[in-house]
């Protein structure tokens, strides 16, 4: 498990909140497994399109920036995007 607030989690949260109209429903869950970091981004149902974008371009941008945040902490990051709640 992580200790203290994670950079990756904070970054994904800031980006996702800017993209959706229902920022208060954004939740990010981070889990460590075998040296890799799984980040699950949950957004309000119906807001999924906003964070995925046309041709998944926004999702790709989020993955790039999640990896940048991971680079800072020496983590390999996988980002999954889901709707609803954890």
């Amino acid at each position: 498990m992580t200790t203290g607030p994670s950079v990756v989690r904070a970054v994904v949260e800031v980006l996702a909140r800017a993209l959706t109209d229902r920022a208060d429903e954004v939740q990010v869950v981070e889990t460590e497994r075998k040296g890799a970091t799984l980040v699950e981004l949950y957004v309000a149902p119906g807001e999924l399109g906003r964070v995925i974008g046309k041709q998944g371009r926004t999702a790709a941008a989020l993955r790039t920036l999640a990896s940048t945040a991971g680079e800072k902490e020496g983590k390999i990051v996988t980002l999954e995007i889901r709707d609803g709640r954890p």
Partner: protein
Amino acid sequence: MADATQPIVEFLNRFTAALGILTPVDVEETPDGPRLNFSGEEAELLARHRGEPIKALQHVVDMAFGRNLDDEKRIFVDALAYRKGKDVELRQMAKLLAAKAKDSGLDQQLGPLNPYERRIVHMAVAEIPGVTTESIGDAFSKTVHISLRK
């Protein structure tokens, strides 16, 4: 600072705070829209991997704030003027190839380029008489052909 720029700068500051890097945002209002550049040594993190992070951030900013902007304007996000430098290089390369097409009569190709980069090439070549440009391909990135105007 224009009213529309303020929320974008606030967002960029929240982003760098979350990332834990100390990078002031320089704001320049131009007729084409606001140009926002991260300065400070730590902005290097965003210019790595051929500027992929800063391009990704540009996309997020476009999606989140683009629709609040006038049609003609666009927000430009940069780190250490990395993209600005790349744009200058691309413009020079476009003009060089246009001159080559004119001298040799042979088509020149540049790319694959994204829409933003293609726009730069089309506009740079348009300044040179006797040559024309065309984008070829049906993917997001396309190749620009520069040829003699028939």
